[in-house]
């Protein structure tokens, strides 16, 4: 693996972490949002 490959891989990993954070935030929002929706819909 060349230094160039390594740099490219690091950039992709950084992007992957950002994707993961966004998806995780959606999952957490669904969880709390769902409970709160059921609470306030009463």
């Amino acid at each position, binding site marked *: 693996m060349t230094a160039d490959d390594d740099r490219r891989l690091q950039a992709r990993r950084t992007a992957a972490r950002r994707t993961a954070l966004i*998806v995780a935030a959606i999952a957490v929002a*669904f*969880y709390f949002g*769902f409970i709160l929706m*059921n609470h306030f819909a009463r």
Partner: protein
Amino acid sequence: MSSTATAIHDHDLHDDKPVGFWRRWVITTNHKDIGTLYLIFALVMFFVGGAFAMVVRAELFQPGLQFVDPQLFNSFTTMHALVMIFGAVMPAFVGLANWMVPMMVGAPDMALPRMNNWSFWILPFAFMMLLSTFFMDGGAPAGGWTMYPPLIFQTGDAFPFLIFSVHLMGLSSIMGAINIIATIMNLRAPGMTLLKMPLFAWTWLITAYLLIAVMPVLAGAVTMLLTDNYFGTTFFDAAGGGDPVLFQHIFWFFGHPEVYILILPAFGIVSQIIPTFARKRLFGYEAMVYATASIGFLSFIVWAHHMFTVGMPLAGQLFFMFVTMLIAVPTGVKVFNWVATMWRGAMTFETPMLFALAFVIQFTIGGFSGLMLAIVPADFQYHDSYFVVAHFHYVLMPGAIFAIIAGVYYWLPKWTGYMYNEFWGKTHFWLSTIFVNITFFPQHFLGLAGMPRRIPDYALQFADFNMMSSIGAFGFGATQLIFLGVVIACVRGGERATARVWEGAEGLEWTLPSPAPYHTFSTPPEVR
């Protein structure tokens, strides 16, 4: 269609495995090792859940109460479902995804390797907690895997353990799904566009989105059960202004997409295997992708077909009936494309292909009985009967589990570097196929004749078909020991596998040597 890669650089195929059990298996971040852990865990849970099923079928072998009291019987049916769904089928698919998705898309590993380790190691603790409930006051949960209130509140000390273990399973699934989404979206090799990805990666990507959308709903539902039971809320308590039927709506809003979480990766596996052994490209690749996405979308708007009998407006019944039937369209596209792939192909019938073919036929049987259940007035007759048990077991057992077994036979030489024993593989296939049909086909007749599900005893008129079903179940259970033997023998040695393993195999994973080196694609392959 998935494309091929150019030369693999030898210096990228590292094989520096960590030394020692702790470093190799406990704190591993390697996608192949974590895939192996998932698969071993799923196999263990398959035998545990299978043992529970044997108890259930032994009790139902003849009328009257023989081995277990009704409470324990209900615990076994409940735990059989929880263990098989969350402990066997889902982890098996995640294991296959861990092993194969990075290699298929040309990634060096999963995007978040440490989280990958965490999402696996949560599972053994979740299931130890769940299984320990058998030894608690009040016994294991017995209200069915659907956990409907108010029945579920009769659970004894096991209740909080059930809720917490479901939370942990959900957390593990969500983390696994995040990893797969991030890996596929960000770590694909240059040139590996989305519409060049193998179908298995595609079906898993859509499955991962389903998991992200519905696992928090399940977690929310069981959290509300917890707060109803311990903290004075009344989400599902009519006396406090809540509604027990609300739980059913919430549960099935999770539960129906969950059905597709259990079957979409199976579609992906079969879509890899059939072209290989038909020696043709997959017919209608893009149609398969769109059909999978359509099934994923429709899975969110059909949930109430599980609960027609609780009562709902006519417009609701009609909507859920027609939308459920609509799922037959993309599913039909898939079955048509698998058959069209085989049409005039140079087919051979090695064990993975046999299991894949049996999947197509038997899953279709399960799909047809699903269409019958979608018809509202007919469902009023079939609801909570053995017809439903026959239906979902056809989808999950000769459906999802056959696809998992097909995938294991297909990729085993790539994992171990050795060919499995074809004679024993085929023996495993034929005995499994015969016994699984002896087990579940008569259950259609039992249901149509009026036998309710989840009962330990039954009227004399149901005796013959029940005995037949139990004999099939014992045979199927025993046959799986052959599978265990074949896998262990293949891990230990045998005829050397080539890199491509199967003559008709295409895709990046087959450009790697067998067994696949510990680290692969550190330098991204060039995809044309």
